[in-house]
């Protein structure tokens, strides 16, 4: 696509309107940054003669706070699975009856009735992935499918470990590692979790994002992190592997919801239906490098993603993966206390 671009005109029109409506319709999508395939959007814009405006957020909490406050102007958002029930409960989303949309037939069986959205009425599937351990196998050559690499690290990895600054992912993984269940309020177990984390922290190098570069530059050798990053890091550093901890690991899925105060409801519904078409779902995945939930999309996927163990979870590790539920507020409080103590 080549387009002529005049900053002055663009600037002025931005000032006057906020979004320029040349097309017949509009659609305002609120999504994670760098997560929406431009090709997908372009295709949608052409097909429906709709101008799509994308606005970014960086965390579920920010997105929730903004949408709850109102007056934001978004039509749809893409919260993570653990937040979907919150959005529904707080009355922020409309029941779009995704299950009755034409392309719902393409949704893979295991995604048709997820725990966080029974009957899949509210949310259309976007992409999903897992939180496992990325390991540089040139530093550590043992078994990588265990979260002990982070919580009881072997000698070779001490001082070279990263943990993402994601409270729930870290604490849930530690809880599973110590034999508990996600969102547990069992204080005896949580005490062990705290002690384990406090004990392990000096062996970590950082609690940070940006692991693709860090693994590529060999600054860290192991990290609890997302599978998509492992996939990308491996392109730069061929020693990188992604492990699925047998003690249990987290799965996540992002899902498109229709907001209650949406102004462009019909376009939003069209978009939800649109992304469930295999070809379009493949476009999404090809851009963001995460798996989608649509049957038949494999045919349109880039070759390197069709068999990658980072994207397709190997059969023997499937059972250990789980979607963390939304924790009760009391439990959340305990976790925050542990997290603060860990970083004091």
């Amino acid at each position, binding site marked *: 696509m080549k387009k002529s671009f005049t900053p002055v005109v663009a600037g002025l029109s931005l000032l006057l309107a906020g979004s320029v409506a040349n097309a017949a319709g509009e659609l305002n999508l609120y999504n994670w*940054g760098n997560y929406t395939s431009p090709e997908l959007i372009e295709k949608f814009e052409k097909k429906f003669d709709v101008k799509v405006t994308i*606005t970014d957020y960086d965390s579920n909490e920010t997105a929730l706070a903004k949408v709850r406050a*109102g*007056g934001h102007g978004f039509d749809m958002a893409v919260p993570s699975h653990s937040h979907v029930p919150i959005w529904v409960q707080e009355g922020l989303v409309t029941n779009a009856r995704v299950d009755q949309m034409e392309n719902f037939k393409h949704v893979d069986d295991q995604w048709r009735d997820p725990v966080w959205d029974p009957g899949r009425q509210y949310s259309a599937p976007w992409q999903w992935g897992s939180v496992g351990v990325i390991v540089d196998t040139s530093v550590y050559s043992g078994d990588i499918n265990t979260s002990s690499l982070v919580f009881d690290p072997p000698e070779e990895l001490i001082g070279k470990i990263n943990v993402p600054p994601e409270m729930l992912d870290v604490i849930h993984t530690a809880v599973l590692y110590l034999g508990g269940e996600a969102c547990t309020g069992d204080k005896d177990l949580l005490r062990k979790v705290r002690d384990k984390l406090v004990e392990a922290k000096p062996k970590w190098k950082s609690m940070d994002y*940006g692991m693709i570069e860090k693994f590529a530059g060999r600054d860290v050798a192991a990290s609890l992190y997302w599978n998509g990053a492992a996939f990308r890091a491996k392109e730069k550093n061929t020693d990188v592997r992604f492990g699925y901890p047998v003690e249990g690991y987290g799965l996540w899925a992002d899902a498109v919801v229709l907001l209650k105060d949406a102004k462009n409801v019909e376009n939003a519904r069209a978009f939800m239906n649109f992304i469930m078409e295999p070809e379009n779902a493949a476009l999404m995945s090809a851009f*963001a490098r995460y798996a989608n939930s649509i049957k038949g999309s494999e045919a349109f996927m880039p070759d390197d993603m069709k068999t990658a163990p980072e994207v397709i979870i190997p059969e023997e590790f499937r059972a250990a993966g789980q979607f963390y539920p939304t924790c009760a507020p009391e439990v959340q409080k305990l976790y925050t206390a542990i997290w603060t103590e860990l970083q004091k």
Partner: protein
Amino acid sequence: MYAVRSGPVLVKIANMMFKQKFSVTRMPGFSVVAMICFFALYMPLAPLVIYSFNEGNNIALWEGFSLRWYGSAWENELVQGAAIRSLIIASFASVFATIFATMAALGTTRTKPYRGQMTIYAMINQPLMVPEIVTAVALLILFALIKQATNYHGFAYLIIAHTAFCIPFAYLPIKARLEGMDNTLEIAAADLYARPFKTFRRITLPLLLPGIFAGAMLAFVISLDDVVITEFVKSAGQDTLPTYMLGQLRRAITPEINAISTVLLGVSVLLVTLIFFMSRKRGN
């Protein structure tokens, strides 16, 4: 003369460059520190600019020269829009903030202490003292009410929010300049029956200009930098460059950001050169 062992070459270069001869203004070692400081300011920009020409999609791993990220930034409406919005907001906010800050500085400096002055100080400096996230969350809630009531979603919210936190940054240098700027000239002008406004325009303002200039520049870059408040105040389609980048933090940041930053740097360098030659002309 003093032998400055820490960097005689630098001093020599500095002296050559600026035809600095021994004078009362000279402080030994200061030029060296200044040169080190300028060097340190620009050194980290080197990788930033270099990686904008990276062939690979990584901001920290060199894979060969290419202009692909400039091409991709040029085609990316999101990045372009964000950059333009950043500049527009920063321009408005820094102009408003500087005007208001100058007025406020005139109203609070070189005057007998009056009741309420303390409150005014506190209010002006408050944006400095409260972490951004706090103002951001509160503004989100306040502005959301206004947005719902008026159905206006434009830039005004962002400009007001930015103007507010830019005010102390503009105010402090201006106030520092005003303090101790003795008012003999102004009194002389008043004695010569110059009207107050004329005195201000002809005497106070020119004397104050370096402070105003410093304040305006600070305000501009502070606005250009803001992430948190913008993230919470923005409406649909109002991403600025920093919020656009924040959104990528958890995933992967590509050299596209380096490319757009390099372009911004280029623009600013161009501006500086322009100002340099213009002031040269005037100087002659």
